[in-house]
């Protein structure tokens, strides 16, 4: 939306440093610059009109077209009525819902903000424990062949199990819904972290290890100066996969355990037959998942840039 309102502003700006050039030459230059753009970093502010339009057309336009198309189809499919609410109905409900996201009328009736936050909290705790256990374990599996042979069959056996199958065990052990849901997140987050870290350690180039051997570095130096930096990109991939799975699983886990959380909220609204709220929840879950993913990609890019 921003981009659409911004574009007339850019159009009104006169092209910089182009005063004396004939229009045709300017157009040719604009085309040339468009071609060059692919290899150059994004132009700074105040660039010629052609580049701005080109970038707009390539970067921002297609997603907007896609979104408009989605809402259009949704509108056409629902405008004659039916059980699925129309976009406008959902929009009105969303405005009402987000005008007060942090209200609290007891444990079963809280604002959507609280629900999202408590889901995120569960994911963070379960994921944090998984990282604490999974990353060191992955390092050891990668470094010691015996451990790898010992644990790989067990991991291969348990990894394809749906995390929700672990939920009853969690309920049995913890006797409470909340830690059981967190524990489910732990279980589903830990596999990608173990696997990717171990794989990263096993793929450390032999050249680097030969350097370590010729220098006769201590095990501590090998871990801090060679293994950790070399494994970091793999580890971050593991973390990103884990977070993605955790966010998928938490919704399902909360539907089963209840309490406060976006998954429970979806179930609650289904019981209240507020379908527009379920659609809102779908968007919210999607957007939060997208933000988590993008944040980790950014983090990975920043860390690996520093590391390489």
């Amino acid at each position, binding site marked *: 939306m921003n981009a659409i309102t911004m574009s007339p502003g850019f159009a009104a700006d006169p092209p910089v440093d182009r005063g004396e050039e004939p229009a045709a030459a300017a157009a040719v230059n604009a085309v040339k610059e468009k071609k060059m753009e692919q290899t150059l970093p994004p132009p700074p502010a105040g660039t010629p009109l052609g580049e701005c339009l080109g970038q707009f057309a390539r970067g921002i336009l297609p997603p907007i077209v896609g979104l408009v198309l989605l809402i259009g189809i949704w509108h056409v499919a629902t405008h004659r009525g039916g059980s699925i609410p129309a976009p406008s109905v959902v929009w009105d409900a969303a405005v009402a819902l987000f005008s007060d996201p942090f209200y609290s009328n007891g444990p079963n009736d809280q604002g959507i903000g609280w629900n999202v936050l408590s889901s995120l909290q569960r994911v963070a705790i379960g994921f944090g424990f998984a990282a604490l256990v999974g990353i060191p374990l992955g390092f050891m599996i990668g470094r010691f062949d015996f451990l790898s042979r010992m644990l790989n069959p067990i991991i291969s056996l348990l990894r394809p199990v749906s995390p929700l199958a672990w939920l009853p065990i969690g309920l049995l052990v913890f006797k409470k819904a909340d830690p059981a849901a967190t524990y489910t997140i732990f279980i589903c987050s830990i596999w990608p972290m173990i696997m990717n870290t171990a794989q990263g350690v096993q793929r450390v180039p032999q050249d680097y290890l030969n350097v370590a051997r*010729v*220098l*006769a*570095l201590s095990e501590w*130096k090998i871990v801090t*100066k060679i293994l950790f930096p070399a494994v970091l990109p793999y580890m971050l991939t593991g973390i990103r996969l884990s977070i993605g799975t955790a966010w998928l699983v938490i919704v399902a886990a909360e539907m089963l355990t209840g309490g406060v959380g976006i998954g429970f909220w979806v179930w609650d609204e289904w019981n209240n037959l507020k379908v527009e709220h379920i659609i809102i929840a779908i968007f919210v879950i999607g957007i939060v998942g997208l933000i988590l993913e993008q944040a980790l990609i950014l983090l990975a890019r920043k860390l690996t840039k520093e590391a*390489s």
Partner: protein
Amino acid sequence: MEKFVSIERVGQTFDTKKGKFVALRDIDLQIRQGEFIALIGHSGCGKSTLLNLIAGLTRPTAGVLLCDGREIAGPGPERAVVFQNHSLLPWLTCFENIYLAVERVFGQKEGKPKLKARTQAAIELVGLGHAAHKYPHEISGGMKQRVGIARALSMEPKVLLMDEPFGALDALTRAKLQDELMKICEATRATVVMVTHDVDEAVLLSDRIVMMTNGPAATIGEILEVNLPRPRDRLTLAHDPAYIDCRAAVLEFLYEKQAHVEKIAA
């Protein structure tokens, strides 16, 4: 002849899926202190295998290797290696890459300022003082290889082992680095074993050229003494009859006596 590095009846056999593979057999070689040795031969002849044995990265299946009177039982900083592909750690700057080595070798005896001074001296020895705080991906291939050499030299090794150090470089950069290496060896009196497949490089740099027969079961075919006075200059040497003779002798060994390499590989 005083032996500094001594290789006695060394053989190397690898266990492969197709059974035993004999890479090297009956290698006997004595290296004096301060000597520059080139190992030359067709690819697959076990030059690098022999270098790895001296480095201690692999253990021989027969015979024994000694360095300064002690058996080579494993890799160690007194036998520094310059790897074929520089092997700098990409997450450390050039300075930090060298510092890691300096710290390991001298860290217990010397304080930080002295270690840093050593690192700086090593990086200036190869003419890269200005690039000390760049990362390996920010500098050219030739510069990376120079950092690799600086790292090896900074450890003040008893023996400098080089595995085709200039193989991946263009001819001009290679010539420049060869000249630099000659100067450095002159100044430090280093003992060097260098694997190469470049005849000119071998003749220009070394005191003796160890020519190896084709694998499998490769061994030393001939050893050529290069009696050219130092310092050597590549331009004057190009017309020097002794240089041309050496060059011809190596070429003759490689392309007449050991020419059947393709037949074996096929």
